[in-house]
C-alpha cells in the first residue's frame, strides 16, 4: 500500500509544471554561476602563483637577514566555489618575521585588480541552493495535504486501511525523491564544468559529498516546513501565501537583521584600550632593556656614531585597533666604512641580545593579544553565527562552510600554520647563528644564502576534521527535521477531514 502511494505521489509530482520549471531554473542558475565562479577561482589562483613568484624573487634579492622580506601566500580554496565563506574576504598573504606574530588580522590582500568590482556580491553554489532549494521544498509541500483536502481526495485515501503517519511518509519520500533530481543533476553539471579546469582530490570529492548531504537535510527541512503549513491550513491559497511569507522572513529578512540586533557595545573600545596598554607596557619593558644594553655598551643614542655606522632602523609599535605588535630591527647599509669596522663586534653582540629579546617580547604580547582578539572579534562573530542559526539558512551555511573549509576555523588553520612556520624560521636562524652573524646587518662580505631556508607548505585540514566541524550543524538540521516531522504527524492525526 505504501508503495502504491509513493508511486502515485511520484507520478503526480514529476508530471507537474512546477517540477519542470524548478528543474530548469536550478540547472540554469547553477551552471551559469559555476562558470563565473570557476573563472574567478582561476584568476585568484593565477594571482596567487604570481604573488608566490614575486615574493620568492624579493627574498632572493635581499642580501642581508635584517632587510629580508619573507612573505607567505594563502592559496585560494577550490571548494570556495561551493561556499566562499571567508576565503575571499580575508587577506591572502602575510609576512613572517621574528618580531611579529602572523594572525588573520594582519594579513594583506593581493590580486584584486579592481576592488570596486567587489561591489557586486558574488554568488556561490550554496547561495543558489539556499534560495532555490528552500523555495522548491515549500512549493512542493504547500498543497500536499491542503490540496487533497480541497479536492476531497484526502477522504478517499484515509478510507483505505492505512495509517496517517504512513500517508505522510509516502508523501515525504516521493517528494524528496523528486526534489533530489534538480539538486543532484545540477551538482553533476557543476562538477563536470569544474573538473575540466580545476583538479579536485579524492578528499575534495568527499567534502562535496558532505555538502550534498547537508543540502539534502536543508531541502528536507523546508519541505517539512511547507508540509506543516499545509497540514495546519484548510486552503491551498492560504498555505502558499503563508509559506511564502515564512520563506521571505527566514531567507531574506532574518539573516540580514542579526547584525542589527547585536550591536557591538561601547565596552569593546575599552577592552581594546586595556589590551593596548598592557601590550604597550610589555614593549616599554623591552625598550628599557634595550636601552640598558646600549648604555652598558656605551653606544646609546639615536645620533651616535654607532647608530650611524650601522644605519639603524628600529621600531617597536602596537596598532591601537588590531593590536598588531611589531618590533623591527634592521640596518640599511650596503657596506661598513673601514673606520667603523671596530663597531662590528658590538653590533653582533647587540643584535644577538636584542633579537631574541624582541622574539620573546612579541610572543609575550601575543598571549595578551590573542585573548583580546578572541574576546572582541571572535566572540562577536560566534554570537552572530549562533543567532543566524535560528534560521535554517544559518545552519546550512555554517555546515557547508565547515565542509568546504572556508569557515573561520579553516582559515585559522592557515594562520596557525604561518605561526608554526615562524617558529621554524626562528629555529633555523638560531641554528645558523644568524642573529650574531655579520650577514644580519651587512652584505659586504658575502650575502645570505637563502637556498637552505625551510619552505612553507600548507595542507588544508583533512576530511575528518571538516566532518567534525560540520557535524554539530548537521546534527542540528537532523533534529529540526525529526521534530518537525513528529509535529506534522501529530497535527495530521488530530486533524479532521
Amino acid at each position, binding site marked *: 500500500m505504501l508503495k502504491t502511494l509513493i508511486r502515485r505521489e511520484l507520478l503526480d509530482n514529476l508530471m507537474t509544471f512546477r517540477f519542470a520549471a524548478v528543474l530548469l531554473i536550478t540547472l540554469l542558475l547553477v551552471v551559469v554561476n559555476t562558470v563565473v565562479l570557476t573563472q574567478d577561482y582561476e584568476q585568484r589562483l593565477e594571482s596567487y602563483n604570481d604573488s608566490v613568484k614575486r615574493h620568492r624573487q624579493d627574498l632572493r634579492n635581499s642580501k642581508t637577514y635584517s632587510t629580508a622580506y619573507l612573505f607567505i601566500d594563502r592559496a585560494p580554496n577550490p571548494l570556495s566555489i561551493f561556499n566562499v565563506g571567508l576565503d575571499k574576504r580575508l587577506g591572502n598573504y602575510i609576512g613572517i618575521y621574528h618580531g611579529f606574530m602572523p594572525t588573520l588580522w594582519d594579513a594583506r590582500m593581493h590580486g584584486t585588480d579592481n576592488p570596486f*568590482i567587489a561591489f557586486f556580491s558574488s554568488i556561490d553554489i550554496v547561495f543558489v541552493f539556499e534560495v532555490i532549494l528552500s523555495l522548491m521544498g515549500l512549493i512542493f509541500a504547500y*498543497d500536499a495535504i491542503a490540496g487533497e483536502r480541497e479536492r476531497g481526495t484526502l477522504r478517499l485515501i484515509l478510507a483505505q486501511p492505512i495509517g496517517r503517519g504512513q500517508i505522510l511518509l509516502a508523501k515525504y519520500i516521493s517528494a524528496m525523491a523528486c526534489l533530489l533530481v534538480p539538486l543532484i543533476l545540477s551538482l553533476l553539471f557543476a562538477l563536470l564544468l569544474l573538473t575540466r579546469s580545476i583538479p579536485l582530490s579524492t578528499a575534495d570529492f568527499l567534502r562535496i559529498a558532505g555538502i550534498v548531504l547537508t543540502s539534502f537535510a536543508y531541502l528536507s527541512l523546508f519541505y517539512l516546513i511547507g508540509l506543516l503549513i499545509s497540514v495546519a491550513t484548510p486552503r491551498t491559497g492560504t498555505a502558499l501565501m503563508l509559506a511564502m511569507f515564512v520563506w521571505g522572513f527566514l531567507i531574506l529578512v532574518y539573516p*540580514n537583521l542579526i547584525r542589527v540586533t547585536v550591536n557591538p557595545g561601547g565596552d569593546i573600545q575599552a577592552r581594546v584600550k586595556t589590551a593596548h596598554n598592557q601590550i604597550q607596557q610589555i614593549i616599554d619593558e623591552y625598550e628599557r632593556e634595550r636601552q640598558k644594553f646600549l648604555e652598558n655598551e656605551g653606544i646609546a643614542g639615536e645620533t651616535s656614531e654607532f647608530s650611524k655606522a650601522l644605519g639603524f632602523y628600529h621600531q617597536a609599535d602596537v596598532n591601537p585597533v588590531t593590536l598588531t605588535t611589531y618590533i623591527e630591527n634592521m640596518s640599511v647599509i650596503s657596506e661598513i666604512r673601514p673606520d667603523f669596522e671596530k663597531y662590528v663586534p658590538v653590533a653582533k653582540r647587540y643584535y644577538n641580545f636584542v633579537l631574541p629579546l624582541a622574539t620573546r617580547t612579541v610572543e609575550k604580547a601575543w598571549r595578551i593579544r590573542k585573548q583580546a582578539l578572541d574576546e572582541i572579534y571572535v566572540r562577536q562573530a560566534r554570537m552572530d553565527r549562533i543567532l543566524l542559526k535560528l534560521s535554517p539558512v544559518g545552519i546550512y551555511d555554517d555546515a557547508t562552510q565547515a565542509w568546504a573549509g572556508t569557515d573561520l576555523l579553516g582559515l585559522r588553520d592557515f594562520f596557525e600554520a604561518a605561526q608554526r612556520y615562524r617558529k621554524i624560521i626562528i629555529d633555523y636562524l638560531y641554528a645558523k647563528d644568524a642573529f650574531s652573524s655579520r650577514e644580519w646587518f651587512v652584505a659586504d662580505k658575502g650575502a645570505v644564502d637563502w637556498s637552505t631556508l625551510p619552505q612553507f607548505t600548507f595542507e588544508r585540514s583533512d576530511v575528518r576534521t571538516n566532518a567534525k566541524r560540520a557535524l554539530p550543524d548537521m546534527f542540528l538540521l537532523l533534529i529540526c527535521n525529526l521534530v518537525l516531522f513528529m509535529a506534522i504527524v501529530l497535527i495530521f492525526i488530530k486533524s479532521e477531514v
Partner: protein
Amino acid sequence: MWYIAKRELYDNFNSLRFALATVLLLGLMLTNAVVHLHEHPKRIQKYNASINESLTDLTSRADNLYTLAQEGPGLLYKKPSTLRFCADGGEPFLPNVVGGAFLWSISGGLRGFWRLNYPSTTPNLTDIRPNVTKVDWAFIIGYVLSLIAILFTFDTVSGERERGTLRLILANPIPRHTVLIGKFLGALISVGIPLALAVLMNLLVISTSSAVQIGADAWGRLGIIFFIAILYASLFLALGLLVSARVSRSAVSLVILLLIWVTFVVFVPSTLASIAGGFSSPMSTDELWQRRGELYAKRWERYDAYFAERVERSKEIQFKGEHVIAEAEEQERVNEEHLAQQIAQVKFARGTTRISPIAISQHLFESFAGTGFERHLQFLENTKTHARQFRKFIADTDSGDPESSHIIGIREGMSEKPVNPAAIPKFEDTLSLSKDFNAAAVDLLLLTLFVIVLLSGAYLAFVRVEV
C-alpha cells in the same frame, strides 16, 4: 472602475497577506530607523572631526605660500548623506577621502609637488562576522516589497476564474480594460498603504530625533524616492497581473512568478555583473606602480641630461620648477587613468545589470539618497574641481607678490610670504539634485518603460482571456 478597485481593496484589507505585509514592512522600517539614529550621529561626528583636523592642518601650512603649494590642500573628505538610511550603496566599502600626496624629496634637493591620489577602496580585511545586506529602504523595497507585490496579484485574475466570479464581473457592461485597471489600482493601493504607513513611521522616528536633521531638499528627495518605490511596486503588480491572466490556475501562476522573481531579483544582478566585469581588465595595481616608476625615471633622465651642461642660474630655477610641476602632473594623470579604467569596468557592469528591475531601483535610490557609486564619482569630480581652484589660488597669490619670480614648483622661484588662512579655498563636498537627476533619468525611463510594457502585456493577455 472605482467600484472594482474598491471591491479589490476590501478583499485585500481583510486578508491575511495584508496583515502580514503590514507587519513585515513596519518591522523592517522601524529597524532601519533605529539603526540610522544610532549610526548617523557618529558618522557626522567623525566627518566633522576629520574636516576640522584637515583644516587645522591646512592653516598650519599657511605661513608660507611655498609650503602650502607644495604640500597641497590636505585630505578632502566626502560628506555623508543625510539619506543614508534610504540606500547604503556600499558606502562603508567606498573610500571617503581623497588625499593629496607629495614627495618629501625627489632627490637633487628638490621636493615633489602634491598631486591627487585616489585610494581605491576600504575593504575590511579583519571582518570575520557573517556577510549581510544592510537593511535600508533599497533592500526593503527592492526585495521585500516586490515579493509582497507578487503575493498580492498572483491570483487576481486566475483566482477569480477558479472561483467563477470572473464570469460575473465580465457579465456586467464594463469594458475589460476598465476591469483590469480597476484591479491594478486596487492592488496598487493595497500595497501602497502598508508601504506608506511603514515609510511614515520610519520618517517619524527619524525626524523626531534631534541628532539627525533632514533639510527641505532631503524631503524633496524622499518624495521622489517614494514615487520610485511605487513605480517599482507597480512593475511587479503588472507582472503579477500578466502572469495571472495567462495562467489558468493561481498556484501555477505563483510558482511562475516566484521563479521569475528569484531569477531577476536575487540572481541576475550579481551574476550578470560578474560576467560583465570579466570582459575588460583594467590596469592592475602592479602595472600602475610600474608605469609611475617608468615615468619617474624618464623624467629624471631628462633632468640629468639638462644639467650635464652648464646652465645659467635663472634658467636653472625655471627648469627645476617646470620639472617638479611636470612630474606631479604626469603622476596625477596616470593615477587618473588607472581610476578611469576601474570606473569604466564598474560602469559597464552596472549598465548590464539594468536588465533586472531591482538593479534599476537600486541605482535610482542611490542617486536620490546621495550614496553609492554615482555619488562617489561626483565626489571625485568635486575634488578635481577643488584641486584646480587650489592651484589657481596659488598662482594668483604668487603673482600678487612682487618679490617672487613667479616660478611655481620650486622654493627659490616662489613667494614665501604667509597666506591669509581665510582666503585659501576650502573643500566642501556638495550634492546637487540636478546632476543626480541626469544620472538617474535613464534608469527612471527604463523603469517606466518596463511598467508600461508589462501593463500592456497584462491588458493584451486579459483581453484574450477566455472565461
